[in-house]
């Protein structure tokens, strides 16, 4: 059969034929031929759908053809017509049981399918490039004073030199981003310009290393010339209407440079560690010397036979040859595929994923799947025991044990298969919802392939056999005499109880986990950052236009508005680590040994006021003191501590780059200028704003709208060629923790599901136990027990199970929570109350579930239950 014919076949047909081949390989060809012939006949008579359904049905009947090694037919007495009919009747008769089972299973399956998809997506980052396993990023490892500083960025020359020196390296590309600032872009039609993220410069070699899907333009040469640019499809549509009309047109960036569009590419997939919307040629206005000095991200492409370890080992000698003797610089090659999930470097392109969170999520997925399966086993056994008499009668009438088992297992397989179908449809429908929860699109490649579906349904099949198997074998093996014996005991139900304890334990763990995550993120949002950025408006001035020159006048005019309290120009925002400088500082009277590595803010007057910082000692910069304009600095408390300044008397620091020592005029209370993930580092604040940076304006809460209008109007006077772009500082902070928030959303939603499923199982178990104790309760009632007393009696067993689960699982839950929290420098303590809340919640939920049944039992009229004795 040729391939085209094969592909033309529907999924169901391929599934049917696959099934036949699997069941009866010896005569498969013959059977398939017959089926195909009947298929075409039915196709003519009854339409495609019916023909396919019949085909599938007939392929199931081939189960009869299965023989064991001795040639015995295993399903000799298997008549699918009868078995399915019987199963169907049983399942319809016990509607609530079927519903609970299907619901529990499909919810569990949906949840774990999604977690599977999410985790899979997290692991597929950057793998869409053809050569992804051969691409490496050149990264820095600066070790200074035993402090390791792994950097994702490197200078342009390294990637180029590595590619030149090593025969194993086939190519390189350097990509330079705009370091977090947006670019103003103008086209013929959009003359006012729009601000865009995702503008980068790249070497012309870009397309030989990375894969782009070009919709227009010649991939080989697109970036060869200076002032050329390639843009994504959405940018092309936004600025030029459509892909083809974009070609050859001009885009202007920041009122400075014109770029000619030479190519349009399909949007980069979401599972990429960076997302460039516009890629300009790095050749634009630069020499090789310039490009060597540029900071950016360098990538090299190794050939298929290269040994990356060997290259890494020989890199120090390359560094030695090109750097001063005492350089501490270390360079190594980081696999492209490790960037997103398996590295923690500073100055990443975009926030990266977190392996611990991903693992925790996988754990949650496994938990949910287990809870759902245990549930299923519990319910099957519980309801199976109701059918004990049916089975007894069948046995007396001569049913084979194997046939009883097959019947019960078939019922269970029907349930799992239906649940799987429901789950697949549910998953498909819920994809947009989960994508919005996760904040990213899921990698769906391959899930509609016949092999994946076969795997999923194989899994359903297996689950059906395993989960249905235990009750089936147990029930079918009972001796009829024993079944009808009055004294038949139902045993200790150890398995059921341990499964329940397990379910409780997992639910408790999930709840504890969710609470810890929730609390940590609340802590993030409410933590005293050491500053009060509530009404701080940010105006990015990352460019040198008119405003850079007229800044002073602009500032004076803004301050004339009474609702504008203060403003300050800063080299970077708090949290904007990628733009922050680092420098060595030592006390003026100290030696090189005493030097401290500090972070640097360059800013101007009113920095302290605008961000709402507190000065613990000394004073802020003052306009009235001349020396403050260049010879004074502020430091934070950590810096003061590290530099050994107990007070400000004679507190001078000296910096390599400056001739004069600088006077420390004030100490600022520590504030979180980097990230809550890392500890507060020493900080020096210079009063020396450059023309570029971020202008932070502190506004009063009143008349906010009119104040914003005023700022807009003033802006137009100074910067007519540029639309105003602003955002609030606290929004910016919130965004920094999007990753955590997304994983919290996921974990909490899935926890709710897991607990819900566990409750379903509990309900089943309660039903089972209660029915077994009807008579006991009846007798107790006759002897005068009250409903409350009986309820306590019945419910206490479950309370014990919950408590047992809690005791068993607490240490593990604590360990896992602690593991997750180690990623945060500023973290909550895992309080006792979290455990208390979790166990109480599960206890209440369990009681609520159980009480429904136990109250029913406790209120039953004893004459009813005792009548048949």
């Amino acid at each position, binding site marked *: *059969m040729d391939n085209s014919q094969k592909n033309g076949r529907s999924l169901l047909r391929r599934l049917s034929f696959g099934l036949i081949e699997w069941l009866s390989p010896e005569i498969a060809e013959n059977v398939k031929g017959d089926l195909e012939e009947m298929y075409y006949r039915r196709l003519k008579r009854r339409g495609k759908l019916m023909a396919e359904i019949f085909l599938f049905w007939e392929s199931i009947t081939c189960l009869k053809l299965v023989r064991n090694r001795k040639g015995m037919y295993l399903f000799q007495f298997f008549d699918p017509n009868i078995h399915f009919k019987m199963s169907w009747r049983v399942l319809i008769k016990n509607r609530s049981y079927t519903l609970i089972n299907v619901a529990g299973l499909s919810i569990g399956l949906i949840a774990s399918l999604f977690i599977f998809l999410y985790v899979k997506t997290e692991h597929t980052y950057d793998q869409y490039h053809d050569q992804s396993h051969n691409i490496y990023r050149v990264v820095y490892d600066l070790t200074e004073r035993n402090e390791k500083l792994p950097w994702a960025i490197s200078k342009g020359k390294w990637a180029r030199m590595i590619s030149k020196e090593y025969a194993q390296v086939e190519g390189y590309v350097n990509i330079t981003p705009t370091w977090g600032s947006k670019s103003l872009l103008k086209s013929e039609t959009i003359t006012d310009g729009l601000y865009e993220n995702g503008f980068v410069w790249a070497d012309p070699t870009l397309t030989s290393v990375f894969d782009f899907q070009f919709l227009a333009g010649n991939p080989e040469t697109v970036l060869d010339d200076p002032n050329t640019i390639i843009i994504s499809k959405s940018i092309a549509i936004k600025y030029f209407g459509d892909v083809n009309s974009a070609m050859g047109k001009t885009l202007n960036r920041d009122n400075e440079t014109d770029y000619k569009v030479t190519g349009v590419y399909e949007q980069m997939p979401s599972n990429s560690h960076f997302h460039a919307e516009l890629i300009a040629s790095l050749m634009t206005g630069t020499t090789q010397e310039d490009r060597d000095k540029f900071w950016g991200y360098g990538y090299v492409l190794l050939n298929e036979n290269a040994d990356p370890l060997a290259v890494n080992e020989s890199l120090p000698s390359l560094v030695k040859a090109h750097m001063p003797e005492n350089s501490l610089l270390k360079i190594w090659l980081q696999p492209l595929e490790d960037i997103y999930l398996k590295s923690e470097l500073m100055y990443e392109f975009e926030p990266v994923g977190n392996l611990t969170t991903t693992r925790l999520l996988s754990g949650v997925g496994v938990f949910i799947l287990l809870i759902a399966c245990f549930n299923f086993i519990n319910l099957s056994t519980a309801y199976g025991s109701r059918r004990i008499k049916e089975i007894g009668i069948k046995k007396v009438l001569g049913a084979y044990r194997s046939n009883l088992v097959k019947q019960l297992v078939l019922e269970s397989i029907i349930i799992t298969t239906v649940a799987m179908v429901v789950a697949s449809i549910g998953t498909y429908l819920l994809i947009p919802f989960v994508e919005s929860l996760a904040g990213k699109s899921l990698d769906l490649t391959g899930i509609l392939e016949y092999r994946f579906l076969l795997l999923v349904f194989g899994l359903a099949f297996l689950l059906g056999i395993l989960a249905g198997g235990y009750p089936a074998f147990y029930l079918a093996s009972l001796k009829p005499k024993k079944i009808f014996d009055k004294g038949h005991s139902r045993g200790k139900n150890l398995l059921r109880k341990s499964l329940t304890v397990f379910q409780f334990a997992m639910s408790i763990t999930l709840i504890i986990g969710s609470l810890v995550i929730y609390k940590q993120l609340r802590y993030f949002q409410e933590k005293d950052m050491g500053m009060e950025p509530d009404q701080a408006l940010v105006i990015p001035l990352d460019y040198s236009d008119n405003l850079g020159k007229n800044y002073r006048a602009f500032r004076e005019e803004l301050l004339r508005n009474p609702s504008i309290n203060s403003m300050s120009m800063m080299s970077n925002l708090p949290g904007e680590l990628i733009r922050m400088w680092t420098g060595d500082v030592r006390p003026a009277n100290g030696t090189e040994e005493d030097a401290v590595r500090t972070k640097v803010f360059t800013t101007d007057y009113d920095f302290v006021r605008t961000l709402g910082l507190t000065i613990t000692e000394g004073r802020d910069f003052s306009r009235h003191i001349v020396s403050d304009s260049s010879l004074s600095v502020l430091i934070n408390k950590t810096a003061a501590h590290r530099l050994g300044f107990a007070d400000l008397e004679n507190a001078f620091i000296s910096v390599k780059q400056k001739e004069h020592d600088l006077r420390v005029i004030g100490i600022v209370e520590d504030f979180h200028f980097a990230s809550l993930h890392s500890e507060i580092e020493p900080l020096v604040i210079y009063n020396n704003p450059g023309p570029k940076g971020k202008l932070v304006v502190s506004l009063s809460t009143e008349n906010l709208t009119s104040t914003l209008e005023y700022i807009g109007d003033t802006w137009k006077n100074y910067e007519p060629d540029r639309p105003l772009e602003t955002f609030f500082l606290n929004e910016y902070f919130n965004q920094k923790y999007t990753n955590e928030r997304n994983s919290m959303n996921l974990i909490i939603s899935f926890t709710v599901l897991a607990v819900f499923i566990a409750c379903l199982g509990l309900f089943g178990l309660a039903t089972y136990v209660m029915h077994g104790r009807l008579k006991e309760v009846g007798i107790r009632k006759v002897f005068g027990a009250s409903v409350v007393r009986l309820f306590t009696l019945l419910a206490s067993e479950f309370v014990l199970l919950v408590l047992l689960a809690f005791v068993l699982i607490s240490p593990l839950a604590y360990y896992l929570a602690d593991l997750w929290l180690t990623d945060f420098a500023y973290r909550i303590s895992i309080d006792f109350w979290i455990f208390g809340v979790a166990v109480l919640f599960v206890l209440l939920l369990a009681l609520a579930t159980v009480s429904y049944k136990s109250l029913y039992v406790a209120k039953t009229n004893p004459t009813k239950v005792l009548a048949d004795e």
Partner: protein
Amino acid sequence: MKNYLGEFEELILLTIGVLGSEAYGVSIKDEMLERTSKKPSIGALHTGLQRLEIKGYIQSWEGGATAERGGRKKRYYKLTNLGMETLKNAHELRNQMFDDLTKLAWNG
């Protein structure tokens, strides 16, 4: 009893015999449906065929391929001498017993 035939097996043998040289999966199924209103599933039919072939009552060979079978060859079946004999035996046995039964009813 040696050479015992189940009811369904006997039916298959008879159908194959009736069909002569045109007996293959689908035609056997059709014939059965026409004559007895019985509609065996493909699995059941092929289990029966397999069983009968192992027992040596029928033999099979591959015929020509047709487009309506997706290019697959038909497998034709015919009765072997042993098969024919077994059928006869079953028939005789039944006739014998039926005769005895009617005699008994008549004379009884």
